[in-house]
């Protein structure tokens, strides 16, 4: 652990790691990294390395935790014992329990909970390497893992921190800034700028808080852009994709196709005569499916 630096920002306005005050650390995203999870995402943000996994919606046990009308989003933030220089004791701590709670709540406004009543969506955020801002990194990874799992959401959540060092507001604190700075303000927001998580460590004046929120909004927009890019580019170039899609996947005809398939598979076992009324059934069914849509 480095000692407190004399100055956080040099004469040219550059920070210890060479960034400007309103610059975020480079971020690298990889999706679908875990084969057994329903959705997963590995994210590197500066020296932070975070792995997020989503399981579900699945059956919730114990049953008393079930919500009769909506799905429960259970978020678990955990730091690996080797994620920091001095080994931390594995298992839940006061800090990780708190972060799990607030991070889970950060997704409440975006996840369409009414779709899967009584079920649970488990989100696990594992910090493999920590370098300040792990809760925001975990949220950014978890959003992508949720999207990867096919969870219906109103939008993506992006998170970023703002802090104060040498009396100056800086975006996305690094380790020394976090350890010896005057304030740390992690924020998560939706794409509309609706804040879903806000915590503060240290001291900021009301004016600084307001200015900091403006800075963090710009940071979150940059992160949202990275998240978007990760999602859209995952299946190759967007334009090519649009052309190359074959007409076979038209959703409107899905229901018909299924009915066809049923006819086919039953033909093998059933007589021709019965096939006739199977066709009648098919027509009825199609009508009903249309109504449903």
């Amino acid at each position, binding site marked *: 652990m480095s000692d407190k630096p004399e100055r956080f920002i040099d004469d040219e306005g550059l920070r210890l790691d060479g960034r400007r005050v309103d610059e975020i650390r480079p971020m690298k995203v990889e999706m679908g990294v875990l084969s057994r999870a329903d959705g997963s995402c590995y994210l590197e943000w500066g020296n932070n390395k975070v792995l997020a996994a989503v399981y579900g919606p699945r059956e919730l046990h114990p049953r008393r935790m079930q919500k009769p009308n909506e799905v429960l989003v259970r978020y678990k933030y955990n730091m690996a014992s080797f994620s920091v220089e001095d080994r931390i004791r594995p298992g839940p701590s006061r800090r990780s329990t708190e972060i799990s709670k607030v991070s889970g709540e950060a997704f409440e406004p975006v996840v369409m909970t009414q779709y899967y009543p009584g079920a649970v969506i488990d989100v696990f955020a594992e910090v493999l390497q920590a370098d300040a801002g792990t809760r925001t990194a975990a949220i950014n990874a978890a959003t992508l893992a949720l*999207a990867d799992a096919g969870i219906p959401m109103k939008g993506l959540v992006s998170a970023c921190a703002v802090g104060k060092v040498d009396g100056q507001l800086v975006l996305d604190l690094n380790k020394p800034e976090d350890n010896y700075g005057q304030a740390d303000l992690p924020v998560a927001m939706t794409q509309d700028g609706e804040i879903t998580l806000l915590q503060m460590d240290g001291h900021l004046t009301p004016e600084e808080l307001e200015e900091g929120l403006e800075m963090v909004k710009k940071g979150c927009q940059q992160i949202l852009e990275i998240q978007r890019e990760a999602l859209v580019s995952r299946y190759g170039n967007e334009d090519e994709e649009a052309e190359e899609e074959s007409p076979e996947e038209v959703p409107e*005809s899905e229901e018909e*196709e*299924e009915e066809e398939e049923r006819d086919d598979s039953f033909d093998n076992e059933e007589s021709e005569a019965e096939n006739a009324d199977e066709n009648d059934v098919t027509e009825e069914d199609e009508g009903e499916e249309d109504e449903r849509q």
Partner: protein
Amino acid sequence: MKRKIVYPGQMLSENEKQAGTGTYVHEGKVYSLFYGVANDKNRVTVVPFSGKYIPSPRDYVIGYVIEVTSSNWIFDIGSPYDGLLHVSEYPKRVDSSMMRKEIGIGDCAILRIKDVNTSMKVELSMKDRGLRRLDEGRIIDVSTTKVPRIIGHNGSMVSMLKKESNCDIFIGQNGRIWLKGKDEDMNRLTQAIEIIENKSHTSGLTNHISAFLRYEESDEIEEKEKPVPFTSSKKDYTEDACRKVDVLLSDEDEN
């Protein structure tokens, strides 16, 4: 017809009347709910890339028994909610003590969903034609969102699979597929379905898979002579042909 990859919260249309499945309306504009492929014909719909099967009435599913109670079989149907098959929905009268003999724990069956209530209690039925216990063949799992692709346009893909693989196939809406045939045929078909799952967003897949199933067959005979150039040249041919077929298909769609 335009298709593109969209992410949750992406604005799809400014006209709220265009909102289809997989979208939501906020302040008069239509946004995507899923990470998937958007399709705007007259309504904008989004088909997610992945997701769990959510039971809906009249769906055909493949389930396996996880519990037998005094009057119900409880089936795992590959969804967050288990399915209940009441004895009265079994094709013949079964005494409570004989239930385990009819379908025991771990047995598989093709079932139809009779009803799903608001608390997601799923009632199953086995009283329809084609519904039965599965005693032979094998079951493979695919993502439920890929099921329409495996069935294909008007069943084109599945009928081709059946023809080329000499296997019996049943596709459940919950993403479980039952196959029956010779072991080597089933192995090949399993590989073919894996390809469909991974390449579901590419074009000319039906032809590609058809070629895959056929050429592996002929590979066994011609392997010794020229294994590599054989497959590669055929691949070029099919890709070209696929594109032409796709153009024809999309013309038909517009008409």
